[in-house]
């Protein structure tokens, strides 16, 4: 295998040289004719000369007027940097091109600048003004990249300039620039730690940012600059939890690990006192990891902080991430924070990661090894996933073995041992030896199989491979120590093998056993010593030491037979080359051989040498790893890495919970209708949940709540949390409004854009025909029948509710009493009930009005309609159009709002109509019948697109004001437009 590998690499080397010469050739060909000559000549010179001349050559190219030559030169310079060659002398020539118009050239100059600025500080300053200018560019990407490069130039003189730039960028309108500024914070901090205080201020400000782009980067900066300033997190905790799913994957890892630390300082332990490892309970929970169940048991003693629960709930979906680092970080979060029985949630995902690359397996297996020591139950069902394959790398095999050993218990030990038998025969001898160790551990841990294991190991003593035999001897020695009474047979057997064993560790082990249990093998032990006396000089040190030991012990127990032998060996030892052996010999001689000089110790020699010795405990190498946070570098190395932050213990009493409360400010109404905002943190996740539950005709998206629009910066600082969720592709702003509009109206469908809380005036509904739906048929309702319709009036009870009018009639021949609304599901469903109707006479009917909060979803509201005797389950399923509320809006406003649509929320319904009556009036009528919308006054067919001939253009706008909760009103303003032309064409 090794040789083959070398052969291959040689082949690769040869190929590379060929390719390199091809590369040279290419370069020569590409250059201008004059360069060609030079290039050809410079290959003939000596290597040192070539290098220099090559640089001369590059300098000339860089100073030329031709863009293409400069670019070519820069490419070669980058090639030099990549190879680790020094190209610093070109600095003056390169830095001139920093303001080049050619983007690629500019980028390559940046690469160069960042690499060498530290070495050429004075010259680097020449480039600074270019970046300062670029920081003021209107284009956000240019601003961002200027800041990126500026902050990467590690020149201490420009610290004040960087500080200023970071501060400005942190208040930039573009979230992308703010993200870049968060990255720059770390760079400045490592350049000049004295700026810490000022940087913390910037971090504090950026932590309040609601953009998902910024969240990850600012937490990285936080972790680096001021990881101990937990107080900065309080107010942002809930926001971070809610944003987490939408943050890019690398940011997720950092945020999760920061929140793990945070949670350990802020919440009390969810682990019940005294009942730390209830394996049985865990197994019961394993089958059904239902949340309710767990909540019920928890409720008895301990109530989890809702914020703690929020973190656990919001990280759970990330277990499905494709990024292994994210999965691992969620797993460690659950391990360190979740109640014991919930930790099992992560098992499956961790096992899934084992299919990933070898390096990923390595880390994951390490973590599983640590987990499996404390919680066997977690991984036991997946035991077979840890079976070793012959193709695994050795360190993977060893880790799998470790885990299998940890998982072994009375029930599965026979399966595991059978599997181990295969491993022992492996051609990978290091692995076979590790397996023998593992068998030894199983044998000590599970007393039922000790004898079986011991017998198996004794069989291995006749193995042909030396390492296997040696390892078996060592393990048998350890096992015998635990129960030495009945095993003299094995000791005899080993004595017989002694001549054939050459591995010193194994020989030493046998000698030790002989000495320790010499009373059990009184005839054999002196014989072994005799043999050793013969070969003493040729043995390894460790064997010599044990020989001296054996001699001493035998001298004490059986001095008649062994006195001379012992003296002979001690004499040999006295003149040995090794210090250790000489020392030991001298010590033993004084200890055991009585003479006039030897002190009081002589009397105790027997008690010293033949003292009962405690049996060694065979422990996992991962026993103590749990002192490190899982998933960290320190855990992987089993030693503290620099910059490692200890995970604190749970506090006995939770600190004040209210620090995380964020004041809710009443929405500012109507004052500025064009003011829109950034994504609202709290409402965003909620509405995602709802939107994704929408029914089949609704295609929705848990769209990343966006924060792209630039007009929002002012809003971001104020407490107004508003959000935008939009449908359809982000439009290019350069396109005409009309062109983007046609995006919206696909196939005559109505496309509703669920929009953020705009402060639009809600208008009276433009009336459409009211459709009545059946709620309860009188046959099923034992006479009670109910019908409902949506009156399209704002609900009086609560602004977020949809008004529903229910007509109850009594179709039976007796009167019904106490009609009221009973249980509802989901229990959280917010219904404003009608007052209980005391009595409804036969044939009578009564209309009552209710308010239902559908939470902006078309999910049905289920509740019970009860009479005195009976309860009937009924459900109201709203059509999506009924969830909307019309608002008045001028056409300009409409187009402006429409231009801001960014997100991915779509709700659609098809309006079918005959071509014949496709007048604008008819279209309007049809649309109104399905949706509660208002009309935008429009008179200008001129806005219609060029690609469709001018025609009647019906525009409708609707904005609904719905709330998701009483404390957090987040009305949305969906816009609907319909294009009469298009719908006609389709019908």
């Amino acid at each position, binding site marked *: 295998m090794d040789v083959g590998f070398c052969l291959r690499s040689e082949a690769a080397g040869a190929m590379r040289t060929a390719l390199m010469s091809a590369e040279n050739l290419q370069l020569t060909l590409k250059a201008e004719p004059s360069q060609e000559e030079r290039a050809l000549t410079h290959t003939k010179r000596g290597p040192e000369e070539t290098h220099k001349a090559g640089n001369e050559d590059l300098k000339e190219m860089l100073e030329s007027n031709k863009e293409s030559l400069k670019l070519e030169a820069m490419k070669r310079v980058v090639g030099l940097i*990549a190879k680790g060659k020094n190209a610093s002398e070109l600095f003056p020539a390169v830095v001139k091109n920093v303001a080049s118009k050619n983007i690629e050239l500019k980028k390559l100059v940046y690469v160069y600048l960042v690499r060498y600025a530290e070495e050429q500080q004075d010259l680097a300053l020449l480039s600074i003004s270019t970046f300062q200018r670029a920081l003021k560019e209107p284009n956000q990407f240019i601003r961002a990249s200027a800041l990126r490069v500026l902050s990467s130039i590690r020149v201490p003189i420009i610290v004040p300039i960087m500080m200023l730039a970071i501060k400005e960028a942190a208040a930039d309108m573009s979230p992308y620039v703010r993200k870049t500024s968060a990255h720059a914070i770390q760079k400045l901090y490592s350049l000049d730690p004295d700026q810490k205080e000022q940087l913390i201020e910037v971090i504090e400000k950026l932590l309040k940012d609601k953009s998902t782009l910024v969240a990850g980067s600012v937490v990285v900066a936080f972790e680096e600059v001021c990881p101990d300033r937990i107080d900065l997190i309080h107010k942002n905790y809930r926001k971070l939890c809610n944003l987490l799913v939408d943050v*890019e994957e690398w940011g997720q890892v950092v945020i999760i690990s920061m929140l793990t630390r945070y949670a350990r300082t802020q919440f009390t332990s969810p682990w019940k006192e005294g009942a730390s490892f209830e394996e049985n309970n865990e197994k019961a929970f394993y089958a059904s990891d239902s949340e309710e169940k767990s909540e019920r048991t928890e409720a008895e003693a301990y109530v989890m902080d809702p914020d703690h629960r929020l973190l656990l709930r919001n990280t759970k979906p990330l277990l499905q991430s494709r990024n292994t680092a994210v999965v691992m970080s969620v797993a460690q979060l659950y391990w360190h924070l979740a109640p014991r029985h919930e930790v099992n949630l992560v098992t499956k995902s961790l096992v899934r990661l084992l299919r990933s690359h070898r390096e990923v397996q390595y880390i994951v297996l390490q973590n599983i090894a640590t987990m499996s020591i404390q919680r066997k139950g977690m991984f036991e069902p997946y035991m077979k996933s840890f079976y070793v394959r012959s193709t695994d790398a050795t360190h993977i095999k060893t880790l799998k073995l470790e885990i299998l050993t940890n998982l072994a218990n009375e029930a599965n030990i026979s399966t595991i041992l059978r599997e181990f038998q295969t491993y022992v025969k492996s051609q990978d001898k290091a692995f076979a030896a590790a397996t023998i160790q593992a068998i030894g551990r199983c044998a000590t841990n599970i007393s039922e199989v000790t004898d079986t294991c011991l017998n198996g190991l004794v069989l291995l003593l006749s193995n042909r491979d030396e390492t296997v035999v040696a390892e078996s001897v060592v393990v048998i020695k350890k096992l015998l120590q635990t129960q030495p009474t009945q095993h003299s047979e094995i000791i005899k057997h080993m004595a017989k093998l002694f001549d054939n064993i050459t591995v010193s560790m194994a020989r030493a082990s046998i000698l030790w056993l002989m000495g320790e249990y010499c009373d059990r093998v009184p005839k054999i032990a002196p014989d072994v010593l005799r043999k050793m006396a013969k070969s003493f000089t040729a043995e390894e040190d460790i064997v010599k030491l044990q020989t001296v030991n054996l001699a001493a012990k035998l001298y004490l127990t059986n001095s008649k037979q062994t006195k001379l032998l012992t003296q002979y060996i001690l004499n040999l030892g006295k003149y040995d080359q090794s210090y250790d052996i000489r020392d030991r010999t001298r010590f033993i001689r004084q200890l055991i051989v009585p003479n006039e000089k030897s002190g009081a110790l002589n009397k105790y020699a027997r008690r010293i040498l033949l003292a009962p010795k405690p049996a060694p405990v065979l422990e996992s190498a991962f026993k103590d790893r749990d002192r490190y946070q899982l998933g960290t570098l320190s855990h992987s190395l089993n030693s503290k890495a620099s910059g490692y932050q200890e995970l604190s213990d749970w506090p006995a009493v939770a600190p004040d919970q209210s620090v995380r409360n964020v004041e809710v400010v009443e929405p500012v109404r109507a004052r500025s209708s064009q003011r829109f905002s950034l994504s609202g943190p709290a409402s965003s996740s909620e509405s995602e949940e709802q939107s994704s539950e929408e029914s089949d005709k609704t295609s929705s998206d848990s769209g990343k709540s966006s924060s792209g629009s630039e007009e929002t910066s002012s809003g971001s600082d104020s407490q107004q949390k508003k959000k935008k969720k939009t449908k359809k592709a982000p439009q290019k702003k350069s396109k005409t409004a009309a062109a983007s509009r046609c995006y919206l109206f696909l196939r005559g469908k109505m496309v509703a854009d669920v929009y953020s809380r705009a402060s639009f005036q809600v208008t009276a509904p433009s009336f459409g025909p009211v459709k009545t739906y059946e709620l309860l048929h009188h046959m099923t309702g034992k006479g009670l029948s109910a019908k409902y319709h949506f009156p399209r009036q704002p609900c009086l009870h609560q602004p977020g509710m949809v008004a529903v009018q229910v007509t109850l009639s009594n179709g039976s021949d007796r009167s019904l009493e106490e009609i009221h609304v009973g249980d509802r599901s989901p229990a959280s469903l917010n219904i404003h009930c009608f007052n209980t109707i005391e009595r409804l006479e036969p044939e009578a009917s009564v209309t009552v009005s209710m308010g239902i909060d559908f939470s902006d979803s078309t999910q049905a509201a289920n509740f019970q309609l009860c009479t005195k005797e009976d309860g009937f389950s009924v459900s109201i399923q709203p059509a999506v159009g009924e969830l909307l509320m019309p608002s008045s809006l001028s056409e300009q406003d409409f187009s402006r709002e429409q231009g801001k649509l960014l997100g991915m929320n779509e709700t659609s319904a098809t309006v079918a109509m005959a071509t014949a009556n496709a007048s604008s009036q008819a279209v309007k009528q049809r649309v109104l019948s399905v949706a509660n919308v208002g009309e935008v006054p429009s008179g200008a067919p001129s806005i219609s697109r060029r690609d469709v001939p001018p025609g009647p253009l019906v525009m409708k706008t609707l904005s609904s004001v719905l709330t998701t909760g009483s404390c957090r009103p987040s009305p949305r303003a969906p816009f609907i437009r319909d294009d009469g032309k298009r719908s006609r064409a389709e019908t």
Partner: protein
Amino acid sequence: MLMFPSDSLITSFVYSMSALPPFKPVTSYWFRLSQNGQNELLCFPSPASPPPAAMIHSLFLINASGDIFLEKHWKSVVSRSVCDYFFEAQERASEPENVPPVIPTPHHYLISVLRHRIYFVAVIQSEVPPLFVIEFLHRVVDTFQDYFGVCTEAAIKDNVVVVYELLEEMLDNGFPLATESNILKELIKPPTILRTMVNTITGSTNVGEQLPTGQLSVVPWRRTGVKYTNNEAYFDVVEEIDAIIDKSGSTITAEIQGVIDACVKLTGMPDLTLSFMNPRLLDDVSFHPCVRFKRWEAERILSFIPPDGNFRLLSYHVSSQNLVAIPVYVKHNITFREGSSQGRFDLTLGPKQTMGKAVEAVLVSSQLPRGVLNANLNASQGTYTFDPVTKMLTWDVGKINPQKLPSLKGSMNLQAGASKPDENPTINIQLKIQQMAISGLKVNRLDMYGEKYKPFKGIKYMTKAGKFQVRT
């Protein structure tokens, strides 16, 4: 090292020493010379008092023969002599795969991945989740593969400028910035033969003129303004069986790992939904970020706005608790007689549970014991090779014909005098079955919303053997 920005040299120096892992006595480094003849002292980090905790400091690419052929630094330059620790570890490891992924050195930590026989070694200076780095390095390799078709030393050297530009965009100050292939492709165009030619002639560049709007969009994985004349969406359901079969032919463990790889070339912003006939089969799934998780939770429907081009939509796991159909059986008789320098080798393959589909591209490989000198075998079908150096026996069987089962029979010559090997070799099998997903997973339908054209849709199923081992 010679230019200290701060005057607190001594104190900070002591600090950085104390922050070291207790690994080796520090004094030993003063004398340590690297392979390149540079003194190790040169690689001291600049003595800023807090450990600068950039995630990834530097990246070195090392080929199989131990040459550093590319280096990139995102912060101060780390001398390449730091790789000496890696080379030491490499020497200790018997096989290239056995190099530990995490290696501590006095000042740095080296985290490496090995792919395509290239080591990607990242230099870390302080605590960071190792998986974070490993995952990123694999993402880098995937990106190179995506850009250059292959990720070999030659390809990287040929495209060193593109590689540098990519690495520059992928990390900022050691923290991943843009790793989404769609965004990167907007920033830096992948080199094609045509484009290279055009660039040489016209002097135009690989760097995208457009600014990466995707980074800001709510669908950061999809580039904007996609246009195709033929709109197509292809999905490949590929399942791999991982199994260990014991001597007697019974299954010790078997599980199915599946992926759905997609190649979507659709204009505009299509919104796709993909539903399965039997979604309950999927035991554990991981998604591309484009998949709406809530929708999956609620309805078991994959709803997503796809990235443009090739991507992995989903990977899933059908657990070992379910019964897994094993597509082939192996009859084997491999014996070594005591005292004889001959061994018998007899192997027959046959289809087992294939649901009537043909088993194709069968490749059998086995690592024979060290004592085997040569093998004289006779293959009834296909060809076999035996590498006397690595002792690797490979038999390219091709398609299994159920009427005439393929077999490989003959004898092995053993080293004279060597004792009989105590383990029989393990047999690894690769195979392919077209038009079938062995778990029985079936896609029900694929719908597109949001765009009005009719795309061409295609779904392909395939079953492969993953880590399929037969113990003999």
